[in-house]
């Protein structure tokens, strides 16, 4: 059976963070139930297309999925379980805001079948959290992780951000130090970036207060060193996990596993075609689940995706795997690029794999752009 990942998008939040460019709405409480019903209908309607697939991961993202009632999330997951073939060891994740959960909530999620939870902690420094518009504080984040562990989640991730406005290297180091002592199995570290259209992108004071590239890299390398020292394996540019606890859902994106996204604006990759759902909330609730075509991936583009997505993984890409997928040797297709980047130290050969070097991870776009 073909492996499949399912993504569920919950486009609601308590407040919108100043740096966030994801599709989400604050409030709109009246829309929560109709939206959950719409997703359930969407999931059920598509099931017939995936009878030959086995669902290996399910991921609820947002927005903040946990602004919905635990029961609503459970009903959505139940629809998947009822209509699709789920692998026995499927990883089923929901993102959560530390402020939106309690013991009871987590217990309902566990019973519904969720076995992995991902908290958007960002930082354990309350001043910095307030400055970027987060509603929780460090204490709540710590408590949320302990609650999740007690509720029986096998896998717990926290997201940390660095290069936040006014953040010093030692501020970030403190957050990492707190994180590694928690019962978490996975940590993602992202550099804050000012995306177009976000309030941050036009806030000159905050932009000025953002650490420069030198400080940014110092924080990143610090995280890499500390997390490794505490037994977290660096397996993707921004992701670290304990052995066997790497995020299988996200690994799917980097290895071009097929995925179907349900919910507002959710993207899918099926049979080398990328498409998404409508981004109009009312339309979606009314039942417009038609796929909006994004791109047909040509053979050439698929090879480029294989490389640029695969190279995000620390282990890199397997040249034998490339040949199996595309019937050509990677040297014939990208020989020029490979030679150039191996020569200038951004790529390394670790037969049969090709991977980014440590320096290459800092300049990965320069590498990827050449393969497009």
């Amino acid at each position: 059976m073909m492996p499949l990942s399912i993504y569920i998008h919950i486009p609601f939040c308590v407040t919108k963070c100043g740096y966030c460019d994801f599709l989400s709405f604050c409030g709109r409480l009246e829309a929560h139930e109709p939206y959950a019903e719409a997703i359930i209908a969407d999931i059920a309607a598509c099931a017939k297309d995936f009878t030959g697939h086995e669902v290996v991961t399910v991921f609820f993202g947002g927005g903040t999925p946990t602004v919905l009632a635990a029961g609503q999330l459970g009903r959505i997951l139940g629809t998947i379980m009822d209509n699709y073939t789920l692998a026995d060891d499927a990883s089923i994740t929901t993102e959560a805001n530390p402020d939106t959960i309690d013991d009871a909530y987590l217990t309902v999620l566990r019973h519904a079948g969720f076995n992995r939870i991902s908290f958007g902690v960002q930082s354990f420094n309350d001043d910095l959290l307030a400055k970027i518009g987060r509603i929780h504080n460090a204490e709540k984040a710590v408590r949320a992780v302990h609650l999740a562990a007690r509720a029986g989640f096998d896998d717990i991730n926290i997201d940390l951000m660095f290069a936040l406005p006014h953040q010093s290297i030692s501020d970030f180091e403190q957050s990492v130090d707190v994180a590694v002592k928690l019962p978490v199995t996975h940590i993602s570290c992202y550099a804050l970036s000012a995306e177009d259209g976000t309030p941050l992108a036009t806030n000159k004071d905050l932009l000025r207060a953002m650490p420069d590239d030198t400080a940014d890299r110092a924080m990143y390398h610090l995280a890499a060193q500390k997390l490794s020292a505490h037994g977290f394996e660096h397996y993707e540019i921004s992701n670290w996990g304990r052995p066997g606890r790497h995020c299988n859902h996200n690994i799917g994106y980097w290895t071009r596993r097929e995925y179907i996204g349900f919910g507002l604006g959710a993207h899918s990759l099926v049979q080398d075609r990328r498409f998404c759902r409508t981004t109009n909330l009312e339309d979606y609730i009314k039942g417009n689940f038609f796929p909006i075509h994004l791109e047909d991936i040509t053979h050439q583009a698929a090879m480029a995706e294989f490389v640029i997505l695969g190279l995000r993984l620390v282990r890199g890409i397997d040249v034998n795997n490339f040949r199996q997928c595309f019937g050509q040797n990677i040297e014939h297709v990208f020989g020029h690029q490979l030679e150039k980047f191996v020569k200038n130290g951004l790529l390394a050969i670790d037969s049969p794999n090709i991977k980014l070097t440590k320096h290459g991870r800092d300049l990965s776009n320069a590498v990827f752009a050449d393969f497009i």
Partner: protein
Amino acid sequence: MQNIRNFSIIAHIDHGKSTLADRLIQNSGLLTEREMQDQVLDNMDLERERGITIKAQAVRLIYRAKDGQEYVLNLIDTPGHVDFNYEVSRSLAACEGAILVVDAAQGVEAQTLANVYLAIDEGLEIVPVINKIDLPAADPPRVIKQIEDIIGIVASDAPLISAKTGVGIEDVFEKIIKDVPPPSGDANGTLRALIFDSLFDSYKGVIVFVRVFDGVLKKGEKIRFVGSAKDYEVVEVGMFAPGNFIPTDQLTTGEVGYFTASIKNVADTLPGDTVTTTHNPTDRPFPGYKKATPMVFSSIFPADRSRYTDLRDALDKLVLNDASLFFEPVTSVALGFGFNCGFLGLLHLEIIQERLEREYNLDLVCTAPSVVYKIYTTDGQNKEISNPADFPDPTLIVKMEEPIVKAEIILPSGYIGAIMEICQGRRGVFVSMDYIEADRARLIYEMPLNEIIYDFFDALKSRSQGYASFDYELTGYKESALVKLDTYINREVVDALSFIVHKDSAIERGRKIVEKLKKEVPRHQFEIPIQAGVGSKIVARETVSALRKDVLSRCYGGDVTRKKKLLEKQKEGKKRMRQIGSVELPQSAFLSVLKLDED
């Protein structure tokens, strides 16, 4: 012949030459209001936009005067800029008179004077006209006095007009008829006609603009161009109606018109040359024509290398219409295949670059303008070079000479200090200063041409808040100590960024170049030194620090399409860059060094 008047209009930019010409055409009743396109004579878009005339144009008007007689008025519009000085003088030579249009508020400007003197040299009758009397700041008595004081012609009876509103246009007509003498010449003599311009038409070949001084120019006649010694047979003869050509059978003595003769190359029909008949050539040709000598050179490259042939085709077409444009193929390590082009002056250069970009839709990279240096080497040779790449080994140079101009700057007296500083800073030698009026001065400097071709004009405008006007003429060559200033990026010399400069300017120029380039060179994964040097000596250095970070932190299922587009954009940007060793340089880097005085 008694009822023909041939005249041109001399005016400073903005003083209303084209508006007056339009008004004359309109009042003569040749065109209805609807047919009048604003400024009939300036045909090219560029001419309309800049308010300047690049090519000479002519139009034939019929005017019924107050004396009851009908007159033929041939208006020959001349290029208004000193770059086209020679063309101006040829156009003027085709006339008996010139209307001098002076703005009633601004008064006489430097550029006007140059052309007035040209007209006086050609023996033309000057008819002053005071325009824009409708402006609140108009002060006709002051301007009239100024004309009389500076130019030394009677202006007390000058028509006071507003070309814009139409006031006083009748007076201009009457004044032309009264003051401009009718043409004289031997109507029965052998053909002698003066070429004052030409135009390339893809159907008819070159259309030659002429003034007949003696004899008759007939259709079917075998004619000869005296200067180029080429013979042709006249296919079509005609006169100029506003906006089009009207064929006739012949042009008689005193008349202005055109002819075609299946001529393929404008170079055969240069302004100033004499047209006569093959069977009975005149023994009194006009003083002969001067071949235009390019003064300013710049190499032009297509931004997109694949458009080299398009650029060549465009230049081939432009040169059909502009015999003064010179070009030859050139190769640059940094910029690929292009053309080294010669221009009459800076305005000419700008015009050609703009026409290539607009009319031929080309994206260009141009090297810094250069001038022609004379270099005498130990082997007894005398080289003329304009391309820094041709600069010889300094140890072989005996003597070097560079072109010198007389720069005339007219400016409000408040800016004299600032402007003198600019001139001095560019090796200018003060010649004289006088006051045209109480608060307007004229500064004359002798300056090396290579100091004004960069950004002198921009500097002048910015330091005088736009009030200084400037003109120059070549006066000759002077011995000079020149050096070749090279630019190194990541220790590789960039040929398109080499300059010939005076040795005293080298350090300053080098410093500015590396400062500008520092802002244009993108960060790479390694540190990039940017250096300027003379010979083996580095005179300035800046460093572009290494790129520390170029990462997309997140790339999940919903990000792939968007992030791929970002990467594609990044790659697209790279594709337009020029590779210098291991450094990728954007086009803007080459352009940035052209405006060194800007911040």
